[in-house]
C-alpha cells in the first residue's frame, strides 16, 4: 500500500469532483431560496444520460454535456412543480430522487457492462512538470479543472455581480424582491436548472471517470452528501470546496485501507463517509450554521394580486 500524499491528492481531487459539482449547483439553488432534495435523483440521471451520450458519440465531452442536459431536464420537472404549481419542495425533491433512481435504471439497462470512452488527462504545460506538486495538482482531466473554476465563478457571481445580488435578494426575502420588480419565479427557475445541470455533471463524472461504467444506483448517496456539504459550508463556495475535499479524502483513504486489507471491518470503512458527514453536520449545526441559511429557503412563493 502506498498512502503517500503524492498519490492521494490526485485521487482525492477526482473523488471529490462529483460532490463538489453537485454541491455547488445546490448552493446556488438554495441561495435563491429553493430547497431541492432531488440532488441524488438528478445526479443518477446525469450519470446515465452522460454515459449514454458518451458511448453513442465516443466523445467524453459530449458525454458531460449529455449528463448536464439530463440533470437539467429532471430539474425542469422540479421547477415546473414547485414554481409553477407551488408544490411542497420537500415532497417534490423526494419524488425527484425516487423517480430519478427508477428512470436511470430503466434507461441504463442496455448499458450495463459497457466501457465509456476514456476521458483524457490534460496536464497543464509547464506547471505539470514541477516536481511533487506538478503531478499532484496540474495533471487532471478537464472536469477537475472545471469544478475548481466553477467554485471561483460561483463565488464571484454571488458576491460581485448584479444578477448574483438579485439572486441572493430573491433567496433572502422573496416578497421584498418581488416588490422591487424582480421576477422571483423566473430567477428561481434558472437557479434550479443550473443546479440540475451541475448535479448531472457530477453524476456523469461518476459514470465516465470515477468508476467508470454504469451500474444501477451507483451514486450511493453522493447527492445527499452534496446536500449536507451545502449546510456544512454555510452556503459559501470556498468552504464547500474544503468540505468536498475533506469527504473526498475520507473516501479515498477508506478505499485504500480496504484494498490494503487493514484490520478494520470493511463495513465500518464503507460507512465512514456517511458517519463523518453526520458528525460534521452536528458540529456545524451546534455552532449555529443554520443561521446562515437564506431567509426564504424552502418557502413557496406565489405573487397574489
Amino acid at each position: 500500500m502506498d498512502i503517500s500524499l503524492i498519490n492521494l491528492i490526485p485521487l482525492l481531487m477526482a473523488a471529490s469532483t462529483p460532490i463538489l459539482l453537485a454541491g455547488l449547483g445546490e448552493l446556488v439553488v438554495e441561495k435563491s431560496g429553493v430547497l431541492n432534495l432531488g440532488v441524488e435523483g438528478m445526479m443518477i440521471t446525469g450519470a446515465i444520460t452522460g454515459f449514454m451520450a458518451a458511448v453513442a458519440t465516443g466523445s467524453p465531452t459530449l458525454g458531460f454535456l449529455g449528463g448536464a442536459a439530463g440533470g437539467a431536464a429532471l430539474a425542469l420537472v422540479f421547477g415546473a412543480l414547485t414554481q409553477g404549481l407551488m408544490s411542497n419542495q420537500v415532497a417534490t425533491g423526494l419524488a425527484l430522487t425516487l423517480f430519478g433512481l427508477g428512470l436511470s435504471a430503466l434507461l441504463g439497462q442496455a448499458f450495463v457492462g459497457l466501457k465509456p470512452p476514456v476521458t483524457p488527462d490534460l496536464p497543464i504545460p509547464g506547471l505539470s512538470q514541477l516536481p511533487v506538486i506538478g503531478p499532484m495538482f496540474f495533471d487532471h482531466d478537464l472536469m477537475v479543472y472545471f469544478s475548481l473554476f466553477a467554485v471561483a465563478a460561483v463565488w464571484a457571481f454571488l458576491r460581485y455581480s448584479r444578477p448574483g445580488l438579485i439572486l441572493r435578494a430573491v433567496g433572502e426575502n422573496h416578497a421584498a424582491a418581488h416588490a422591487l420588480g424582480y421576477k422571483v419565479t423566473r430567477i428561481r427557475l434558472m437557479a434550479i436548472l443550473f443546479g440540475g445541470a451541475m448535479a448531472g455533471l457530477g453524476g456523469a463524472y461518476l459514470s465516465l471517470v470515477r468508476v467508470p461504467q454504469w451500474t444501477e444506483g451507483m451514486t450511493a448517496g453522493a447527492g445527499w452528501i452534496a446536500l449536507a456539504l451545502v449546510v456544512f459550508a454555510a452556503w459559501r463556495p470556498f468552504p464547500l470546496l474544503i468540505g468536498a475535499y475533506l469527504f473526498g479524502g475520507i473516501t479515498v483513504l477508506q478505499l485504500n485501507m480496504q484494498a490494503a486489507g487493514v484490520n478494520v471491518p470493511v463495513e465500518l470503512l464503507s460507512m465512514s463517509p456517511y458517519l463523518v458527514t453526520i458528525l460534521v453536520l452536528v458540529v456545524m449545526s451546534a455552532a449555529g450554521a443554520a443561521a446562515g441559511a437564506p431567509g426564504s429557503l424552502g418557502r413557496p412563493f406565489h405573487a397574489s394580486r
Partner: protein
Amino acid sequence: MIRLERRPAPSKSWTYLAPLLAVAATMIAGAIMFALLGKDPVLAIKTIFWDPVFSPQFGSYSRPQLLIKAGPLILIAIGLSLGFRAGIWNIGAEGQYIMGALAGAGLALALYPMELPVLLPLMVLAGALGGWAWAMIPGLLRTMFNTNEILVSLLLVYVAEQILSAAAVGFLRNPEGGGFPGSRNLQSYPSAHNAEIIANTGIHWGVVAALIAVIAAYVLLQRHILGFHIKLAGEAPRAAKLAGVNPARLILFCMGVSGALAGMAGLFEVAGPAGKISIDFGAGYGFTAIIVAFLGRLHPVGILLAGLLMALTYIGGELAQLMLSLPAAAIQAFQGMLLFFLLAFDVFSHYRLRIATGRAA
C-alpha cells in the same frame, strides 16, 4: 391569461379528487412509457392493475401477496405521516426498518433453539425498539443541536445497510449455512416464525399490526390533544408555539413512533415472508412508504387505500416482469411518476384556476 388564485381554505372535493386523477394520469403516462419500451400498453396496464386481483390464473397466488406487501408499507407510512403532518421529515424509514429487523431477529437467533411461547411478542418489542433507537439519533440531534433531520435520517440508511451486510456475512450468519451469507431461517424456528394467521390469505401479524396502526392513528388525530398539536404544528407553527406545544417533545414523539413502526415492519418481514437476514433484505419499503403517505393524503384511511394500491403496483409489476418481460426499473419509475402527478394535481386543492376574460383590471 390563465392564472392561479389562492383559495381561502383548501378545497375538500379536490383533496379527494387529486389522488384519483394522479392515478389516472400515471396510468396514461405509464402506458406511453410502456409503449416506448415496445410493450403493448393496454396489456401492461391490465397486467399491473387488474390481473393480480382478478386473473383466474394468478389471482390465487397474488391476492395474498397483496396483503403481504401492503402490510409493511401501511405500517411505515402511518408513522411517517404523523411527522410529515407536523413538518418533521423522517425520510430514513428504510434504515429503521433494517435496524428493527436486525434487533428482533438478533434476539431470536440469540435464543435459538429454545422454544418460548412469548418469543414472537418479545421480538416485536425488540424490533420496535431497534427502529425507535435508530430514529432517535436524528430526533435527538435535531432537538439538541438543531441538526437537519432530513439529512441525518437519510444518511443513516446507508449506515444501516452496511450494518445489515456485516450481520449477514458476519455476526448473524447461519453457522450451519456452509459459509454462505444470510442468517438462519426463522420460518423453521416455530417460536420465532411470524406465520400466516389464516392459511393462504397473506394475513400475518404484521398485517394485523398495520390495521391497528391505522385505527390508532385515526383516533390520535381526531380525538387526542397530541394529534391536534401535530396538525397545529404543521399548519400554523406560530399558533402552536403560542398554544404551548413543546416542539422538542413533538419531534421526539413523531420520530420515535415512525421509527418504532418501521422497526416493527422490518421484524414482521424478517420473521415472516423474508424469513432471514440477508444482504438484500432492505427492499425499499421505507422509501415507497413515503409515496404511500403522500398518496394517502397523510390520512390514516387514505394511507390504507394507498398502501393497497402501491402493493398492487409491486405485484402487478412482478407479474408484468414475468409475462411481458417489463423491466423492474419501469415499475420504480412508474411509482415515482405517481407522486409527481399527485403533487401536480394538488395545486387545485389550494388554488383555483382563473381564466381572465378580456383585459385584466
